[in-house]
């Protein structure tokens, strides 16, 4: 391992070591605040290291990792998102009875897994990243073990994730068996020489799609999403919805582009059908749902469906659109779950529609932020979600994917209904008593509040002046 190699993988080491540091710290003394600060600091430091020392040229650590603009961008995105999740976690866990500290270890490890995913160029690193992410998530989902639903969600996710991992692994084995390579570039080389795709290879890809589809909660592998979102603690849900899916999406984009899957009608058709099904089923499932977490789960199914439109468009613009949309989607989702976490009390998460009734009049700022997030999810101008969706549609139109694009438009219209419904509930006249005083010291909420404020500012900034974000994406992704 050369020095440059080492300098490149330092972000991964930093995450690992901070996890270990926290373990030590716990063994000395359990201090929620301290550990929380360590976690946040490690994410910040990691991010800054990444930004400062991002290799100007592509750097490959054979055979596992590749540090290119796309990878660095996604890793940065994942780190920032994890940071935001950490921020909203503090207040959320402060009022729980369980031991809070180990949660941060898991959070860091899960982030590590996702970070490995986005820079991997080999089946082994893919598998490792995926499993580090998944195993940490099992525990995180079931972290609040007093809650029955938490356990149920944990076990469901565990069995099904393992089940889908088996699919991915078997698929990888088949691919390996046919191509003799576990490196993406090797597979690509094999494909570029092969006259057509061998059946066994196709089967392998198909099985990998099943696994990937599960992680991305694409229809028909989506059914876990709602239950897990509902059962998991709100910050964890935010994490699953963003980091876990984003990492997988980045990997998919990288792999598909490298092997140039666009050449194969069968793959494109499969993804097209999955995309359309995801949009439709996701939106329709959310339509009359009254549990906000489940709504967000279903809506995330649909959103990944939207993402696939740009993914299928491919090309530089497609990748840019995917990246931009991920940014917008991350901001929005973390924001929404952040609000949800802030509103949750000791016993349960604020997930029923009733919890939001008249929120605007009780807690105007909170409601305003949540409205902004929901409007962004709905793709209304002035928000990042609008520009993101615009980008997706632009990529699709640019590539003449009229079917997908029109499905996107149709589904956006359906989607409006349930986002607006939450907003409408918040705007209902509230005749009840005033909000009970917070059980915790208000200063606890400052961090969450600031995070929310930053997120909403970003949301509007990117929505009103997207040029900056687009520049960033272009410089990274196209490098």
């Amino acid at each position, binding site marked *: 391992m050369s020095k440059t190699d080492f300098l490149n993988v330092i972000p991964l080491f930093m995450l690992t070591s901070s996890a270990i540091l926290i373990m030590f710290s716990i063994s000395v003394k359990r201090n929620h605040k301290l550990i929380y600060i360590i976690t946040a600091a490690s994410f910040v430091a990691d991010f800054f290291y990444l930004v400062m020392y991002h290799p100007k040229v592509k750097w490959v650590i054979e055979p596992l990792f590749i540090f290119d603009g796309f990878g660095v961008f996604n890793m940065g995105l994942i780190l920032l998102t994890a940071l935001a999740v950490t921020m909203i976690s503090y207040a959320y866990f402060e009022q729980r009875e369980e031991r809070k500290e180990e949660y941060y270890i898991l959070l860091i490890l899960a982030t590590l897994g996702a970070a490995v995913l986005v820079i991997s160029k080999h089946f082994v690193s893919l598998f490792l990243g995926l499993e580090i992410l998944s195993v940490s998530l099992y525990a995180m989902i079931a972290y609040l073990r007093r809650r029955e639903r938490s356990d149920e969600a944990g076990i469901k996710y565990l069995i099904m994730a393992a*089940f*889908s991992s088996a699919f991915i692994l078997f698929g990888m084995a088949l691919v390996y068996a046919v191509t003799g390579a576990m490196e993406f570039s090797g597979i690509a080389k094999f494909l570029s020489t092969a006259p057509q795709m061998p059946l066994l290879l196709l089967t392998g890809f198909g*099985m990998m799609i099943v696994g990937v589809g599960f992680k991305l909660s694409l229809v*028909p592998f989506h059914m876990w999403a709602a239950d897990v979102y509902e059962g998991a603690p709100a910050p964890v849900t935010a994490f699953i919805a963003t980091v876990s899916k984003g990492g997988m999406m980045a990997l998919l984009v990288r792999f598909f582009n490298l092997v140039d899957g666009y050449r194969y009608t069968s793959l494109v058709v*499969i993804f097209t059908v999955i995309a359309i099904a995801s949009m439709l089923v996701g939106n*329709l*499932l959310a339509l*009359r749902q009254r549990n906000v977490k489940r709504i967000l789960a279903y809506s995330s199914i649909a959103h990944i469906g939207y993402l696939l439109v740009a993914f299928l468009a491919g090309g530089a613009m497609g990748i840019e659109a995917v990246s931009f949309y991920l940014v917008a989607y991350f901001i929005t989702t973390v924001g929404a779950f952040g609000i949800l976490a802030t509103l949750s009390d000791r016993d349960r998460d604020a997930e029923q529609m009733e919890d939001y009734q008249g929120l605007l009049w009780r807690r105007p700022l909170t409601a305003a932020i949540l409205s902004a997030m929901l409007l962004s999810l709905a793709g209304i101008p002035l928000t990042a979600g609008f520009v993101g969706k615009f980008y997706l549609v632009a990529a699709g139109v640019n590539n003449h994917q009229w079917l997908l694009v029109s499905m996107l438009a149709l589904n956006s219209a359906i989607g409006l209904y349930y986002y607006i419904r939450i907003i409408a509930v918040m705007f209902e006249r509230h005749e009840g008593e005033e909000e009970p005083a917070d059980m915790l010291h208000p200063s606890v909420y400052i961090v969450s509040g600031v995070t929310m404020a930053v997120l909403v500012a970003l949301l509007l900034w990117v929505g009103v002046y997207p040029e900056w974000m687009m520049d960033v994406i272009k410089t990274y992704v196209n490098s």
Partner: protein
Amino acid sequence: MEALLWLIPALPLAGAVILIVTAGKLSRNLSALVGAGSVGLAALITLIIGFGFIADPAHTFHQTLWTWINVDGFKPTFAFHLDALSMVFIFVITFVGFLIHLYSIEFMHDDEGFSRFFAYLNLFVCSMLILVLADNLVLMYLGWEGVGLCSYLLIGFWYQEEKNGYAARKAFIITRVGDTAMAIGLFMLFQHFGTLNIQNILTQAPQTWTIGSETATAIALLLLGGAVGKSAQLPLQTWLPDAMAGPSPVSALIHAATMVTAGVYLIARTHVIFELAPVAQQWVGIIGAVTLLIAGFSALTQFDLKRVLAYSTISQIGYMFLALGVGAWSSAIFHFMIHAFFKALLFLGAGAVILVLHHEHDMFKMGGLKNRLPVIYWTFLIGSASLAALPFVTAGFYSKDQILWLAWAGEKGNLWFFLAALIGAFVTSIYTFRMVFLTFFGEEKTHVGHHAGKLITIPLIVLAVLSLVGGFIELPHTLGHVELFSGFVKPVLPAVEMRPGAESGEWIIQLTAATLCLAGIYVAYYFYMKRPDLRRELKSSMIVTNRFWFSGWGFDALYDTLFVKPFVYLSTRNKDDAVDRIYEGIVSGLNRVHNVFAQTQNGVMRWYIMGIVIGAIFVLSIGLILT
């Protein structure tokens, strides 16, 4: 003098605006002063202009105020054009209007809407003046609709009675049907001439079209549509009898003297087009002939004093249309003027009767008023005589006689027109004197309240005088041969062409008409004075016909079934908008799909795993199929 022209409509308008803005805060006397005074001033200016005009009737006055609209060659202006034809009209409008205003001061004295009434009335006079003075058809249309509005407002003047509102609405909507036809006519005219200036059209039309041109016919028929609506001619005549819900001065001014003759004005004004479209012109005659008969017979059966007069008005305008139909333009206008005098007189008289009888409209409950109300009786009698065309002494005789003669002898006349007019004349004198006998003769059935004052009697007397002497400005060949009137309007309205070989024999027709008039009076006398029992017998033997005539030949019921009911049915059935069902269907469809999908999220893990497996099978099979 030309410069004063704008004042004629502007003065009543100013009066109306003052009265509207003050909204009843002025005292009654002040309101009356503004209302009647402004029309009086307008009449005065008309007189001044008239004197200047009469010196040389061939001269026309023209005044442009401002350009109304100017788009792409479409350039109607606010401009007035005064020629002999409009002179006659503004004379009648301002003078009769002024008299009726005077009358109204007393008639409406106790009404709480006193100033509102004068506001409307002034607005009406203004609109009517604009109608007849307009130099282009768009401005004329403004006046045309304006009078419609005022008619609506005045019919429904007593808004507390719901049915008055309905009557007003009926009048407005039915005339609007005609107006719409007219508007379409205007579109066609504009398309062909690139202008809607009346004089330009009239000069260009003969150069553009040959006689019998289809376009000319279509346009003429569309204009006729407007005319029949406004003038309550077949088939749009049904609104006028109901319009009697308005106060009597309104009936006199709007629904007898002026507005309802706007159709006559329109056709006379655009006579060039009608001459180019003989078919359309013939239809004018046919409509006139049929209407005058139908309305005449209906008038025979009415018991409401004002409804008799209403049907009579329809019938008399039928005469005018008949005259227009045979090309006797000046006769139609002459009859319009005389009719304005005597019909206004009759309505005002009827109003006075109704007023003193505490709003009793039923003639059968009147009677014996001859001695109680001598002034009203005599003036009413003169008006009736004029209406029935009592030979030689009344103006009505001369104006109607001319129409009868030309219906026969005019180039476009024929036997049928003539017969219709003749029978109509006979019927007219029957219903007229039936009305007179029932109202003023016999025994007194209702107590007479207060007596009419000067403001009521003076207009009556003036109009009575005019109804008598008005005819002497135009006498037939056989009787003195005076052609003051037709000479006056000749620059605008050409004389009628005579049918070859029909020059003689005018006296025979006059004699027949005179005889029929007298016979009619005798019939009325016989049935209503001498042998009332016979009348009842007749009535019971003709009960169906009677009812049919009474209802105005069933037109109301017919339109009700044909148009009103289907429209209302359609509208109310679809009140909730069937189109919305489509969207509701979409929504409920989506909800149903949602429910189906939600069933799949049943919480059972094995089921979810099944989903993944199905997905895997699907992915693999698509892959296999497509390779």
